[in-house]
């Protein structure tokens, strides 16, 4: 079944239909979510009551729009804060790891490399509970022996950031390593010959070369953090990120305000995807 080998038109047609149906299956839920953000009804379901922007802009109950819904706005800002922390941390450690694995040889290197990949094959829920358990052990130990109550070791944003960081760093490391591997080492040697110091060479030659990969890793890290649910669920304290807020609302059966938030998330993701594609083309 390739274009150069003739097939019966019926077979070709049914194959194309199958692929078409598949794409409908893929896109349908997204379209539905977006469409009902504009339905003038209290429930995100049929019948269609007419077009409205209330779920974005209205400021009174029962049709409270996104821009006036405090808990959702709070969730968005918390998610932003977490995602920025995770992104910066994972780019920093990811870059350092990339140099470690691409430029240095040390004992147990292959073992360390497998260890580095492990967070990707550990289910997110398990990563979450193991960090919860360990931080709790630490906090209790410190409280019993030194009588210090370390608030940041209890469920809360610090643990959420650490939990997400623990597996997103692996992805950042892989993305940045892949680009460092392609780097022509003679460029650095030339810079050394021209009298550059180690720091100068890193700053003016190697890091600029890595910048697209660092940026790409950053976009992926930001999105993964913003959308993370499994690990966050186990570590969250009183400040809930957006996914947790949305999940709680969803269980109660919510108004189309959730659809409106979802529209923002889709537009945001599409925007980030677009930037990262454009950025990769440019280099």
């Amino acid at each position, binding site marked *: 079944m390739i274009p150069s080998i003739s097939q019966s038109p019926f077979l070709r047609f049914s194959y194309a239909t199958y692929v078409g149906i598949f794409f409908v299956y893929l896109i349908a839920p997204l379209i539905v979510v977006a469409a009902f953000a504009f339905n003038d009804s209290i429930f995100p*379901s049929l019948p269609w009551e007419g077009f409205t922007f209330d779920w974005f802009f209205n400021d009174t109950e029962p049709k409270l729009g996104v821009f006036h819904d405090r808990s959702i706005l709070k969730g968005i800002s918390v998610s932003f804060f977490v995602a920025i922390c995770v992104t910066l941390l994972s780019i920093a450690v990811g870059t350092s790891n990339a140099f470690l694995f691409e430029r240095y040889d040390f004992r147990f290197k292959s073992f360390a490399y497998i260890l580095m990949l492990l967070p990707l094959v*550990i289910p997110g829920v398990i990563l979450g509970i193991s960090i919860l358990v*360990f931080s709790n052990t630490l906090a209790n130990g410190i409280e019993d022996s030194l009588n210090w109550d370390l608030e940041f070791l209890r469920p809360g944003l610090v643990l959420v950031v650490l939990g997400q960081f623990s597996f997103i760093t692996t992805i950042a490391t892989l993305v940045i390593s892949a680009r460092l591997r392609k780097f022509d080492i003679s460029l650095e040697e030339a810079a050394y010959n021209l009298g550059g110091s*180690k720091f100068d060479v890193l700053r003016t030659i190697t890091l600029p070369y890595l910048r697209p990969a660092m940026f790409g890793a950053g976009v992926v890290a930001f999105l993964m953090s913003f959308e993370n649910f*499994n690990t966050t669920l186990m570590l969250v304290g009183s400040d809930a990120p957006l996914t947790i807020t949305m999940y709680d609302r969803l269980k109660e059966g919510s108004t189309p305000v959730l659809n409106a938030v979802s529209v923002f998330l*889709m537009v945001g993701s*599409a925007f980030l995807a677009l930037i990262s594609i454009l950025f990769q083309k440019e280099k």
Partner: protein
Amino acid sequence: MDKDISRRLTLWLLLTPFILWMLLLVVIPHIDMFLLSIREKVGPRQYEMGLGNYAEFFGEPFYWNTLARTAIMSVLATVLTLIIGFPVSYYIAKIARSKQKKILFMLCLLPFWVSELVRTFGWMILLRETGIMSGVLQWIGFVDQPVEMLYNDITVVMGLIYTSMLFMIVPLVSTLDSLDDSYIEAGYDLGGNMVSVMREIVIPHAMPGIISGCIVVFMLTLGNYLTPILLGGKSSMWFTGQIYTQFITRFNWELGAAFGFLLLALSSLMVWGGLRLSGQTLASTVAKS
């Protein structure tokens, strides 16, 4: 000599964040979780080492049934993802022309840029009693009252397939892409038909992609929480839901840790088995996706 020292120093400088990350966030937490799982409460603030939590898991049919059910449904979802995704990947890799190919591939990736929560929400709107599908079925006269399509196993499996599709299609398209058309033509020239060419040429070539796709999909499905809980409702009986209940609702961390460890063991066993079966390494499989 001087250069050697500075090189060693840089090595340690780079090793430090790596070691801190690995030890504090991955290795020690898992050891601690294991230690917690073999601890039994014998009185208020009194604990003993023992396998009581694991005994409780195997002694209570509800618990191990949930794990078995989760595992079986994950296998089912993985196989179905492969069966549904393979023709589509083949179409993208081999039949679509260059421009169309790029667009179709991007279209496959598109839904996965959006949060799993949003996608699941979409399915809830489509399938619930007052949802679109129910409305459409009534409108065409197929049924005469609203039908509830949420909260059953078929819907859960369908949702799991949807969530994992990307992780099957990406490795499949990349392995199928690397198969030269002339091999397929040669297969036909030698008298093969569609079935034999598929079986003798295409599938063996795609095997690495099939295996790595299946490993990743199985792992993600087994550890999924949102899709089974939201689409399956209270009766979903998903093992990650049970872990959540023990930790957060019942506050029985010892039993929860044992459950977590069992899930991790099952997941790791499957990943390891899959890698052994296909002779691939973790680096070659995971690093690509």
